[in-house]
């Protein structure tokens, strides 16, 4: 399963036309989300490595009426592992944290991360209080888990073991435009 193919599956599960917010970590997760299905309810980060799950947590607490999907990377989550403990403590049922685990810092040239050497992010999530933690190794497994996470109570942590694929697009570079269109799409008054 490549990250781009898995991202296409995810967009299909979320719904291209839905207002379900999707927060994407910087670099390849954001590029692939844009390529797989640009939507106004996508929040693309261009910096703040590690914080996608934290942004998603704040959003999930603010909007319990919406499922909040986060697309993170293994390197990014390892930079902010404490976020799993905070999610495990606050336990928003509507939070769905998906980690594209390619065992590498792909955006910066493919240097290995600790997950290439045994670090298990699913186990970390469970140890830190996220009971709905799971790993998907095939497209069928990912499809099933993503669909469950959109309906069953969370918080969810889905670690998707993916192969690297060349990013196929880039989101707009205007940060304020991204924010404004996102907030409008999910119905937030700014």
């Amino acid at each position, binding site marked *: 399963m490549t990250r781009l193919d898995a991202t296409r599956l995810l967009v299909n599960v979320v719904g291209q036309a839905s207002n379900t917010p999707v927060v994407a970590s910087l670099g390849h997760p954001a590029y692939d989300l844009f390529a797989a299905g640009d939507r106004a309810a996508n*929040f693309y980060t261009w910096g703040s490595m590690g914080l996608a799950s934290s*942004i998603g947590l704040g*959003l999930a607490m603010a909007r319990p009426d919406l499922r909040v999907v986060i697309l993170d990377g293994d390197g990014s989550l390892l930079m902010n592992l404490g976020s799993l403990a905070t999610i495990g403590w*606050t336990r928003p049922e509507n939070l769905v944290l998906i980690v594209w685990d390619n065992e590498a810092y792909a955006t910066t040239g493919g240097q290995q991360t600790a997950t290439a050497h045994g670090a298990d992010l699913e186990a970390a999530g469970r140890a830190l209080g996220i009971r709905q933690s799971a790993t998907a190794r095939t497209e069928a497994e990912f499809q099933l888990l993503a669909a469950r996470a959109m309906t069953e109570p969370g918080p969810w942590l889905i670690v998707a073991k993916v192969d690297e694929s060349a990013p196929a697009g880039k989101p707009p570079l205007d940060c304020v435009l*991204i924010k404004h269109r996102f907030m409008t799409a999910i119905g937030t008054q700014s």
Partner: protein
Amino acid sequence: MTWASGVCAGFAAAGITHVAYVPDNPLSHVLKVLQTHPKIRTTVATREEEAFGIAAGLYLGGIRSAVMLQSSGLGNSLNALTSLIVPYQIPMLILISMRGDAGEWNSAQVPMGRAVVPILDAMGISHATVQSAETTAATVELVARTAFETRMSGACLLPRRLTAPRVAENANA
């Protein structure tokens, strides 16, 4: 009104309903008051940068928030501020409990304490220092309202002369 009650009154007056924080000793007084406040939720972050991420998400979802941190934690927050909060124009109140200013007893706190204002200036984040317990609520409210109206986060500094005025007492902090 104590300075800590003033902080909470300022939050409430500016419409802040959620506070993400990493605690320190002076901020514990604010947290005690917040525990009794019916409309303000709190979330503990493991690290200051995480608190800024949470606050950004709260804003995207329509909630006005504050981030509370000790000045030492500003250093842990710089990438969140410079690559998320400032360029995306995500407003929040940044409440900084100062260490390393007048009244400090721990030399390890001094370099960062001295750097807080120049760093905020370098990032283009406006800041005001609370001068007294009597003016705390008004200062906090003004900085917060300005942040939300302009969509540019602003910082409110709580100096040690306000939060822990006696050096001898601080040695136990």
